[in-house]
């Protein structure tokens, strides 16, 4: 099955927020934001904005009728700053004009006087100054302190991990329309409609039922619109509330990159102990997360870093420490992988370091320590349906790992100015929201009298193919054709209290809720036909290809006939379904529990060629064995694997967030912030899916696929490093990402003048 939006996307007909024809009299908002990293606002001169033609009003913190607060985990984030600014790009005032251009001109007239305060951008420095968010977390497993003595080699190192801009194609945007009875309808590009609803209500001093949030589709989210779509929606709502006119707020790319948070950079310090044979006995790591100015989702992101700090390995003695460090940068936020990738990068670095010191291959150490069935993760959950070794050995066999390694060595012996590198990257990624309450979803299913079906869920289509998946699930469950099914946009009046579309869990949660609703409708429909056929046992009735079967035999009844008959008999053809993930729990006082419904496993083999004269590299191939369960739509899932891989490769190599000493992002445009393009992606991407029925939680055996493939991209860092070591065998290289051509070249030649 193809992606449900494929045709309309290709023809440019898909509607996004600002493609909807504007209602008459609509106004446009633009945001004035802090030009400094940190300071007390002395004075805000907004009057000059009114000298621009077409300016209707300028709104500041004091114009907020409700509570000036949009913090989702910790209430530490104002919608518009009143007294203090904590990063460049922090929203301070909102200019409303008759056109986006007018509003933009108005913004440029505003002057803010600030008493500048000292600013911090380095997470460790912030930590040492006591600037932390929440409380530090520590996971303990076994006894690291006594284990060091049993190790033949103990190595210590530091990782500096770069952040990542989301670069969703559609920047942040929202339109708010005032309705009668003091209701405001918000059309938002958000992954979290209910968060927008809650916060807009809070900001305006209204009840949740006075805010309706509608989401059609997103032009990409990647986590950047999980928490951080909220502010722009609230601002549009605030402006609509004041002007009583529709107001649209669209961030241009420059403003979007400047004002929104990114993947968290980390400083991580590790210590690892191994036996002579390469068995890892102990691992200790301290993660200093660069959280930015506010909490946002940082504590939850940090938690997942801790949960994934041992990746796909079993380590008997572990201590993992993590702390959110408050810095004067835009608040960093959710991003595909949600802290997991950073945790994995550090253990992979630690393994690389001991391999280099022991003089053995990285793969030898990795293979020796892979998780086995029932091994414990440091947080107390057993590895079940563990495919760590299975995917590793399947990849090694299918893609002939030992041959590749020999070829790489032979190439490197034969070539001087170019070297090849290789890395194997196993992943183990936990599926579920780590915040327990979020693991729930609702769906509303209507069957119309012509037999067509309308489905609303709490999930948001953001290009990931949710609509295709839900339609596939529903068609299968009803036993009818795909074209009978319409997946509606996402709306808070149809499905309430939604969890964000995130954590790779959108299909499993909303798909199961859809199944629960369909089950109710089928339970009401089947007796209608059973009565007509004088059948007692409802189990005998099935719908296959729109025909009603009894005991597998045709009955002459069709789906259309059944639906019409049921309606005439006054049978309810609508149902609301609900799903909550079973089994999961986590005890934060002990830092133990069963936080994940299951884990996704996989292994990727990455090959690169390094130009040692110029410091540039090509990714030759990435070959993956991925644990997919039973795909609902293999094409859609393949798209997720390849897209995630691209994003992971970019994060590790070229995506380079450079701030100057004044906290301005130098790489704040797509001319300077580079993401992988079609040329950068290897021509040779092979993906093999493990298909089995190992997963009982996903609809029809489906497994989550959104985030895990991103982490295959981590392999490229170690593949490039492999090639660097082939050129300079005796040199020590650092663990700083992204590994840009600049970092490569400087490290290759830093000691040679």
């Amino acid at each position, binding site marked *: 099955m*193809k992606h449900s939006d*494929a*045709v309309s996307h*290709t*023809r440019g007909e898909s509607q996004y927020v600002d493609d909807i024809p504007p209602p008459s009299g609509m106004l446009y908002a633009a945001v004035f934001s802090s030009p400094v990293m940190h300071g007390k606002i002395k004075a805000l001169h907004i009057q000059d904005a009114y000298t621009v033609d077409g300016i209707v009003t300028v709104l500041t913190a004091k114009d907020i009728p409700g509570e000036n607060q949009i913090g989702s985990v910790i209430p530490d984030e104002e919608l518009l700053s009143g007294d203090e600014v904590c990063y460049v790009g922090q929203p301070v005032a909102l200019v409303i004009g008759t056109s986006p*251009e007018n509003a*933009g001109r108005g913004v440029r007239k505003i002057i803010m006087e600030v008493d500048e305060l000292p600013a911090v951008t380095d997470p460790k420095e912030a930590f040492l100054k006591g600037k932390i968010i929440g409380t530090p977390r520590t996971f303990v497993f076994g006894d690291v302190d006594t284990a060091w003595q049993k190790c033949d080699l103990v190595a210590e190192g530091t990782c500096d991990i770069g952040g990542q801009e989301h670069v969703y194609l559609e920047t942040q945007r929202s339109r708010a329309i005032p309705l009668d009875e003091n209701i405001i309808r918000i059309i938002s590009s958000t992954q979290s409609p209910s968060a927008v609803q809650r916060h807009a209500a809070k900001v305006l001093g209204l009840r949740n039922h006075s805010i309706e949030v509608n989401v059609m589709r997103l032009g990409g989210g990647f986590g950047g619109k999980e928490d951080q779509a909220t502010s722009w929606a609230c601002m549009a709502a605030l402006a609509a509330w004041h002007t009583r006119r529709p107001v649209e707020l669209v961030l241009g790319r420059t403003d979007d990159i400047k004002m929104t948070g990114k993947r968290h950079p980390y400083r991580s310090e590790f210590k690892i102990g191994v036996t002579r044979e390469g068995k890892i006995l102990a691992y200790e790591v301290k993660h200093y997360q660069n959280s930015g100015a506010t909490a946002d989702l940082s504590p939850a992101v940090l938690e997942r870093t801790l949960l994934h700090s041992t990746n796909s390995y079993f380590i008997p003695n572990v201590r993992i420490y993590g702390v959110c460090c408050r810095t004067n940068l835009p608040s960093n936020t959710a991003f595909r992988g949600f802290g997991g990738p950073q945790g994995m990068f550090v253990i992979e670095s630690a393994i690389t370091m001991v391999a280099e010191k022991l003089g053995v291959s990285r793969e030898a150490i990795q293979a020796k320590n892979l998780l086995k069935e029932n091994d414990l993760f440091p947080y107390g959950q057993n590895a079940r349906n563990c495919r760590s070794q299975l995917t590793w050995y399947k990849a090694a066999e299918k893609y002939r790992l030992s041959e590749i390694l020999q070829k790489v060595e032979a190439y490197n012996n034969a070539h*001087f*100015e170019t070297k090849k590198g290789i890395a194997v990257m196993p992943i183990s990624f936990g599926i579920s929201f780590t915040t327990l309450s979020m693991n729930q979803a609702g769906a509303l299913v209507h069957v119309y009298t012509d037999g067509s079906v309308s489905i609303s869920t709490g999930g948001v289509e953001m290009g990931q193919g949710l609509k295709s998946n839900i339609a596939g699930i529903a068609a299968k469950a009803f036993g009818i054709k795909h074209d009978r099914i319409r997946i509606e946009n996402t709306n808070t009046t149809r499905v309430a209290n939604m969890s964000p579309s995130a954590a790779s869990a959108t299909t499993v949660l909303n798909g199961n809720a859809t199944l629960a609703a369909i089950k109710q409708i089928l339970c009401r429909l089947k007796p209608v036909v059973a009565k007509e056929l004088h059948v007692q046992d409802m189990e005998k009735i099935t719908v296959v290809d729109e025909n009603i079967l009894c005991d597998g035999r045709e009955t002459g009844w069709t789906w259309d006939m059944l639906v019409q008959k049921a309606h005439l008999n006054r049978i309810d053809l609508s149902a609301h379904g609900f799903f909550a993930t079973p089994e999961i729990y986590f005890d934060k006082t002990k830092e133990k529990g069963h936080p994940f419904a299951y884990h996704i496993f996989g292994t990727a083999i990455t090959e690169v060629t390094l130009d*040692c*004269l*110029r*410091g*540039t590299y*090509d990714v030759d191939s990435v070959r993956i064995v991925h644990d997919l369960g039973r795909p609902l739509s293999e094409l859609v899932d393949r798209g997720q694997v390849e897209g995630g891989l691209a994003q992971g490769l970019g994060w590790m190599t*070229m995506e*380079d967030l*450079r701030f100057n000493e004044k906290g301005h992002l*130098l*790489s704040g445009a797509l*001319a*300077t912030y*580079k993401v*992988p*393009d079609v*040329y*950068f992606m290897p021509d040779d991407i092979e993906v093999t899916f493990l298909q089995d029925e190992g997963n009982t939680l996903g609809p029809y055996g489906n497994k989550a696929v959104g985030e895990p493939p991103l982490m295959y991209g981590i392999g490229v860092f170690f593949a490039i490093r492999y090639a660097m070591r082939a050129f300079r065998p005796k040199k020590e290289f650092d663990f700083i990402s992204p590994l*840009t*051509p*600049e970092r490569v*070249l*400087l490290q290759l*030649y830093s000691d*040679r003048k």
Partner: protein
Amino acid sequence: LRTVCFGYFLEIPDRLRKIPSPAIESDVSEKVTPGYFVAGGTDIYVQKGEVLVESGVHLLNMNHELKNIYKKDGYVHVGALTTFEEFANHQEIINGIPYIQTYMSRVASLQIRNRATLGGNVINATPIGDLTIILLALDAILILKNDGESRSVPMMSFYTGYKQLDKIPSEVLVDILIPESSADNKINFEKVSKRKYLDIASVNSAMKIRCEDGVIREITLAMGGVAPIPLILKATGNYLFGKQVCKEDIEGAFPIVQQEISPINDVRGSVEYKRLLAKQLIIAHFTKLFPEKVAVRDFYET
């Protein structure tokens, strides 16, 4: 899906033809009020998109006569409005720069190359303009026109400071003259950027060189991203003139290169990186053009 989509795309030219063209003034020689000359617009609309909307704009691309490429009196004349793609696909240019299409693949995207003009690249004056660096190494001469009068300026003296030109605002670049290259000229272009394709260079460089009996008899070295202007490495060229293509003489040029360049720290790279790249790209020029004489191994094997 196939019929739905393909039909849609096939109809695009028809739909475009139906859009009425606005009346556009097209005479370059006409006196212009203050405003912006726009050639392909691929740089200026990125840099000054918001300003241009409210400014006087003089669209140059209606002047088809500024698109010609022809040979005359020992020069290849390239009209200033020649697009990157037209340039790279013209036989006269391919004759002079055999690998131009390989180099061009590293410059912008096909869509931009079909729109961006050589003249626009030269006048934009970015210190890392790829075509600018190539034209500099080819010893190009610029013809500027002002109200019917024209004058010529060697490209190497055209740039006087960061985005400062030997040109008054009303002058328009109309023609670029490239001296006809002799058969034994060798040309190479190097570019290093964070992303290999569709990216702006950290440092780029072009070299034109002619040897007789193993001795360098003619050399022009241009380098971008290492100074406020697209730079000709004059002293380095002077030093290499008359030298052999050998490891020792090339290494002798390294300190001179470092003296000639003055890179700054910016988002395209640190000073240290750009200085290292300057050296690496000199090695790259020689090892690529004279593989029988020098190899990378000679410079770095320990």
